[in-house]
């Protein structure tokens, strides 16, 4: 696979997997207004994924389509950050169930949106004009996602004893996964070399500033990170992605070439 398509798939899979995760709140939101807000965020993300998959399908040619990329690839072919496939709850393994936890949703959206607000902006200068155009559109969307998640992060952190404890627990659970942002995959390195991609490490100081300012306002403590760095963007995922894809892909696989 070329540097461009592998890198575009990484961006697309990020958007699709988080869009699918957030869509789990549809009809189950803590309040009506948040139910709609999360569905809006999901639709933005799925829209970004579609544009990127369409671009990949064009570059690959043949009979490749956006639907084939979204619905007929398996776990090891997905290139999203592991962070984005985790369930909306604290550490659990396999198909263990627990109540959906909104603070996990908010903390994850915050950590990812803070990165994408910077990355989409930088990608507006990509050597690939199509990607630059998608970045310009996505930049506006993600600025709102960041605003939404940051607002709730501060309300939770600087809220009641319970909301503070839950927000801190979510942060402690998820923060180590952000290490993956800064570790280059071969696909990213090739895309940076080709001028298509952006070296995320050049954005790390700005990301730290966004995160630290929000955490200070939210009276939350930034967890120390270390240990295993996840490799989702290289196709090595947690056990959770398989369950997510099974649900997301089942309809398309049961009715291949179905139209509605």
């Amino acid at each position, binding site marked *: 696979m070329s540097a461009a398509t592998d890198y575009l798939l990484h961006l697309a899979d990020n958007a699709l997997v988080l869009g699918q995760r957030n869509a789990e709140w549809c009809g189950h939101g803590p*309040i009506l*207004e948040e139910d*709609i807000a999360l569905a*809006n965020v999901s639709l933005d993300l799925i829209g970004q994924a579609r544009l990127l998959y369409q671009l990949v399908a064009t570059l690959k040619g043949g009979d490749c389509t956006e639907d084939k990329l979204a619905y007929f690839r398996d776990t090891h072919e997905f290139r999203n950050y592991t962070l984005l496939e985790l369930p909306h709850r604290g550490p659990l393994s396999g198909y263990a169930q627990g109540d959906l936890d909104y603070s996990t949703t908010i903390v994850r959206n915050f950590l990812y949106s803070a990165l994408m607000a910077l990355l989409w902006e930088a990608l507006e200068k990509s050597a690939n004009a199509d990607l630059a155009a998608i970045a310009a559109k996505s930049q506006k969307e993600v600025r*709102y996602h960041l*605003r*939404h998640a940051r607002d709730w992060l501060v*309300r939770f952190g600087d*809220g009641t004893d319970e*909301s503070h404890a839950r927000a801190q627990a979510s942060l402690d659970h998820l923060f180590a996964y952000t290490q993956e942002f800064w570790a280059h995959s071969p696909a990213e390195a090739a895309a940076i070399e080709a001028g298509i991609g952006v070296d995320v490490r050049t954005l790390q100081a700005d990301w730290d500033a966004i995160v630290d300012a929000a955490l200070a306002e939210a009276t939350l403590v930034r967890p120390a990170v270390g240990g295993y760095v996840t490799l989702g963007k290289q196709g090595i995922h947690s056990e959770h992605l398989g369950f997510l894809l099974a649900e997301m892909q089942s309809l398309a696989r049961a009715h291949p070439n179905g139209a509605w």
Partner: protein
Amino acid sequence: MSTALKEWPLWEVFVRSKQGLEHKHCGSLHAADAAQALDMARDVYTRRQEGVSIWVVESKAITASNPDDKGELFDPAADKIYRHPTFYEIPEEVGHM
């Protein structure tokens, strides 16, 4: 730490559309404060490009007329058709009024 707000206040939402000259009332929602009400209004009431500007006002800040007073407040205007500017020709240069 603040104590939990069990009941969020109600807010009235006003949206100005692209062509519209004024903000129009379009509904209400519950939110913890004004900033949050504004964000929620964006998500609830402008998903289909309905607006370019939003106002939110806490519902309790609105003083409303009593429906029972309808007779004395509004009926006396019914027979005063001379208050309608229908007896004037508006010059074209004036444009929209």
